[in-house]
């Protein structure tokens, strides 16, 4: 989280001594030309697929448009935002609340599990082997992850209910019961994202100097209290980073929802990203969908700032 602006200090002092001023200026000019030439594909791309879309999204969110003909776009000001944020709009509740619950649940679960497991792995042999196992879902398509778990949850033949039945508990309709559907998807999101959290936390754990633990041992600290009083506090910057990136990922994630539940039953697992997708590509309400995207972006932004503020307030220097 450091090293950002540590760019190279003044280049080419050796060359300037050797060459005359004229050729130096020529070399500078050539470098500038080359730089713009090398950067042009990247800048062109960002112009077309980043700047233009952002303006387009803002424009659409302020208008009503049925698709196809861009000349028939109708400017309606903040009406779309008013509609989706009004009382009784299903976007605020349950969709946005679902989004927050989904992200909060998945991040909390993944964070607790990954701290415990990353810490435990550093004490074992074959560290790399264990980490690879936790990493498998990261390189697997969300279609596979979603389908595998959909069938693990299956009431009439899935593994989880099979295990429950074996110990005498009757089958649970995990994904079709509105009360269990969201928590069930949360577990999958956490399961799928734990690997990258473990990886980054491991880097943080390895950066803690041994001397702290040795000093602790001299004082007769147990492993448990060393974890609470040495490891966790020193891991805080890494934890903050993992928490923020996982939150950003979970708040916008809806591929898992498409694959597993399609937002059902009865909006129980509908999240903001999925609703935006539906509004645009199923119902053709491009304006409303764009407004939803911007609201979700604002939510992500605010939640990120809140986390930074909370950690800073606790006296932690991050980044």
């Amino acid at each position, binding site marked *: 989280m450091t090293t950002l602006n540590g760019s190279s200090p003044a280049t080419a002092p050796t060359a300037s001594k050797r060459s005359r001023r004229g050729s130096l200026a020529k070399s500078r000019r050539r470098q500038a030309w080359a*730089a713009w030439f090398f950067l042009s*594909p990247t*800048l062109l*791309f960002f112009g077309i697929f980043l700047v233009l879309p952002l303006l387009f999204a803002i424009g659409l969110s302020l208008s009503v448009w049925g698709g196809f003909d861009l000349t028939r776009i109708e400017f309606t000001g903040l009406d779309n935002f008013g509609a989706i944020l009004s009382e009784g709009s299903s976007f605020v509740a349950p969709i946005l609340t679902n989004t927050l619950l989904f992200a909060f649940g998945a991040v909390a679960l993944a964070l607790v599990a990954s701290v415990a497991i990353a810490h435990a792995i550093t004490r074992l042999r074959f560290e790399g082997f264990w980490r690879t196992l936790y990493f498998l879902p990261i390189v697997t*398509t969300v*279609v596979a992850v979603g389908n595998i778990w959909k069938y693990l949850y299956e009431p009439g033949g899935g*593994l989880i209910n*099979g295990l429950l039945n074996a110990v005498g508990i009757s089958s649970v309709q995990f994904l079709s019961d509105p009360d269990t559907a969201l928590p069930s998807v949360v577990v999958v999101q956490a399961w799928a994202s734990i690997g990258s959290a473990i990886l980054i936390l491991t880097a943080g754990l390895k950066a803690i100097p041994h001397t702290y633990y040795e000093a602790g041992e001299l004082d007769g600290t147990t492993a448990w209290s060393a974890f609470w009083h040495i490891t966790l506090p020193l891991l805080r910057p890494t934890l903050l980073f993992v928490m923020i990136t996982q939150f950003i990922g979970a708040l916008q994630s809806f591929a898992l929802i498409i694959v597993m539940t399609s937002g059902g039953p009865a909006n129980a697992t509908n999240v903001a990203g999925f609703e935006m997708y539906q509004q*645009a590509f199923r119902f053709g309400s491009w304006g409303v969908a764009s407004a939803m995207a911007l609201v979700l972006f604002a939510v*992500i932004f605010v939640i990120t700032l809140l986390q930074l503020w909370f950690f800073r307030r606790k006296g932690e220097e991050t980044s």
Partner: protein
Amino acid sequence: MKPRRFPWFSYLLVAVGALIMVVPFLDMVFTSFKGPGEFGRLPYRFLPEDFDFANYGAAFSQLDMPRLFANSILMTGVAVFSTLLTASLAGYALAKLRFRGRAVLFRFVLATMMFPPFLFLIPNFLILANWPGAGGNDLFGAGGYGGLLTTYAALFMPFLVSGFGVFLMRQFVVAIPDEILEAARIDGAGELRIWWSIVVPQTKAALITLGLLTFVNVWNEYIWTLLVSTVNPDLMTLPVGIQLLQSYLDPNLTQPIVMAGLVISTLPVLLVFLLLQKYYIRGMMLSGLK
């Protein structure tokens, strides 16, 4: 910290966790061998009665697998190539070439990473649909149907450049000593030549890392490809195709076939990942440097 006592609690924790990570994958593999009617029969059985490859045949006959693979390979190949090329060139420019506006452009590249991809789903879809001069569109992007959206270009267009990639390459190129580059300049080498014969070889490891990250991300891409293939089914990629295998009427019957399809589509990535794990993990760690 390696304590003298055997860390049985850590072993237990990690092993139970690992079981939770691996069993779903094993369930996928074992279910893909289960015969008709075997899935859904109670009581639940983890292992199949015998290893029957019929489901793999069914997955191949129900889907146009060669086309799905070809589309996935085309999309991923172009995206990886383009990402590496643009990131390496731009990274070199931002790290080593002196020109006005360098600092601002570097900040711009960092800023591009702040915007989550879902923001661009709708506008990019519309931009490709109204691409001037494509698919019967006039120069203002109107008139035709679908624009670039119905062509193969739609698959990879949004994945040609990566802001993170530019950032990553820039961080690696910075580490190349200036003296080497200056010496080449004095010998009369042009910047393109310096890039190709010094910068690229010196940053090979970083390029492999970035290529691998891009490969995994694009190969597994689902939402964009789902959209594109609803416009033109010929553009369907593996993840989208596999999802089609399930029958909503009788999931118990088609489930083993879906699992066979999932094994087919996840296997290439898993193999590449296991072979080049070292590079991938370094890339993930570096993404933590942001």
